[in-house]
């Protein structure tokens, strides 16, 4: 028993070390890339650090961006752990956002019930959008990677139609909806910043996902389905059912991320409220090694990166696309290190 515990702790330490090395290696390459385009890498990194955690405001902004990434990352890791490759976080986020705006514009219920309704409804909407590929995979073995990616595009076009058509703010110039009612908005946590109560929801989701996934028979079955569907079937677990459940939970968390972006940050719906959070969630889940605690740190890391590079872009002329290159490199190195970890076992 002690031996097993030691082994587990050791391997966690190794995984953390290797993740850090992967990030370092990625930044080393980025330094070379920056140097090549004539930017001082040290100055750029300084700006990235300052822009992400250098002041109260920037810390608040970073935590604000952490919120959707955390929820989406948790959702993505639930799906990946269950052997379902849900790449549809982006579309599911928009479907959740759609419901949040609907509540904020057209529903008025007493007190905090509006927010509660938006909260539950956006979870359901994200789930509903995710059930389509989940069901198709479970029943017909249709490749969910392709269907989730394609449904993202469908969702985004649908949002485009809604904000340019039926839900367009009649007095606005841009294709946005009107501002949602105050009762559907999340309150600000730190005055003078944009940090809102959505962060608390995301933080609360970490232990919930952990307990559900690691401490219940329900979560155990989902993990078995992901690790070895044949064994699961042999053990009497309905693989199809758990595939759909994984998509429901995954899509629901993504939908929640959409609601929080609307109710907490934008207070309206427009095209592009997500700068690719749904795709970034894949990076968050992989760097976080599909574990709630890891996902939390990975979400903070990528949120800092987004804000940091935006600041470095303004001050040091670092190209904005650099974010995606860094993300890609970090993921590549993390993946390659997967091989090293496996060889040790």
């Amino acid at each position, binding site marked *: 028993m002690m031996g097993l515990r030691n082994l587990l702790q050791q391997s966690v330490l190794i995984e953390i070390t290797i993740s850090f090395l992967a990030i370092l290696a990625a930044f080393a390459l980025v330094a070379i890339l920056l140097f090549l385009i004539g930017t001082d890498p040290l100055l750029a990194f300084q700006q990235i650090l300052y822009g992400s955690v250098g002041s109260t405001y920037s810390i608040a902004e970073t935590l604000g961006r952490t919120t959707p990434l955390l929820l989406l990352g948790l959702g993505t890791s639930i799906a990946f752990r269950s052997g379902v490759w849900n790449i549809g976080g982006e579309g599911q986020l928009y479907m959740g956002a759609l419901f949040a705006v609907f509540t904020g514009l057209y529903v008025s219920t007493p007190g905090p019930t509006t927010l509660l309704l938006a909260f539950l409804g956006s979870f359901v909407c994200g789930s509903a959008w995710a059930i389509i590929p989940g069901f198709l995979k479970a029943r*017909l*073995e*249709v490749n969910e990677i392709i*269907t989730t990616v394609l*449904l993202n595009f469908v969702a985004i076009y649908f949002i485009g139609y809604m904000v340019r058509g039926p839900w367009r703010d009649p007095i606005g110039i841009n294709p946005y909806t009107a501002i949602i009612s105050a009762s559907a908005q999340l309150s600000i946590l730190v005055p003078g910043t944009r940090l809102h109560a959505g962060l608390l929801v995301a933080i609360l989701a970490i232990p919930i996902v952990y307990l559900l996934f690691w401490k219940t028979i329900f979560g155990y079955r989902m993990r078995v389905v992901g690790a070895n569907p044949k064994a699961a079937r042999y053990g009497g677990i309905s693989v199809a059912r758990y595939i759909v459940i994984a998509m429901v939970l995954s899509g629901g968390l993504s939908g929640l991320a959409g609601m929080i972006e609307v109710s907490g940050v934008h207070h309206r719906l427009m095209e592009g409220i997500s700068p690719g959070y749904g795709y970034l969630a894949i990076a968050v889940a992989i760097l976080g090694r599909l574990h709630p605690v890891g996902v939390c740190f990975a979400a903070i890391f990528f949120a800092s990166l987004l804000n940091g590079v935006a600041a470095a872009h303004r001050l040091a002329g670092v*190209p904005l*696309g650099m974010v995606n*290159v860094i993300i890609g490199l970090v*993921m590549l190195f993390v*993946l390659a290190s997967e091989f090293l970890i496996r060889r040790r076992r």
Partner: protein
Amino acid sequence: MIVLELLDVVFITGFLEATIRIATPLVFAAIGETFVERSGVLNLGCEGMMLLGAIAGFIGAYWGNLWIGLALALVAGASIALLMAFMSVTLRINQIINGIVLWIFGLGLSTYIYRAVIPIKEPTPLLTGLQPIYIPFLSDIPILGKVLFQQNALIYIALLLVIVSQVILFRTKVGLHIIAVGENPRAAETLGINVFQIRFACLLFGGAMAGLGGAFLAVGVVKTFVENMVAARGFIAVALVIFGKWRPLRVLGGALLFGGLEALQMRLLALGLDVPYQFPAMLPYILTIVVLILVARKAEAPASLCIPYKKGGD
């Protein structure tokens, strides 16, 4: 009224021409993917390779000429594929995650390169596009002449590629080796076939073709580069391979069907149908899902698809 216009010669010619133009990038990417999957590797990085092909084609055409662009696109696609081969064939990393990561890497790198070359303040440069080649006599035939014999060189190359691929895959020793590796790598190795060599070669070819498809999109269709311009065509190509049951000729059929429906949709919209543009724009994506549902369960993928191979057993 609309019915009359549908029967118009100009309309039909335009429609068929557009069908081929839309189908061509898909044909390149999907034929490449066919070889990759036949050898037992699922390349979900196809989208990223198309994006890098698009930016390489654009830059080559912008600085030099179209042919330099196409050559660059081949190299760009193959380079990413080489990375994929090293990671998923040599290191045996999960092909699905590897593909997704390379897709996102390609998305990031292509945007970055574009911004590094064209500063934000400058307007997007437009390319002249590919010039059509007129095949003597045949190009004078009404409708068919314009559709089939007045196209640019790449479209002829795409058609040739399909036929050559079909022959190579099913009528040559190399093709049989590829199929054997995809179905049963262990048995193939016993017969003296180098599994790693075959998978590397197929991936390199698949990456180069994806790059070429992306470049055709940038150089021949859109005539510029736009961020994320491939817009899931890489994934649609993967879907077409499933639809085509891993057979080049059937893949071509699928690509043409797809191109035809999209071309029809665009033309109906141009005729003034009163539908918000977002709905026709959704069609290709919904259509691909419908196609996948239709062929579901009937599709028989290569037996070792997605399973990393370890020499000498685990």
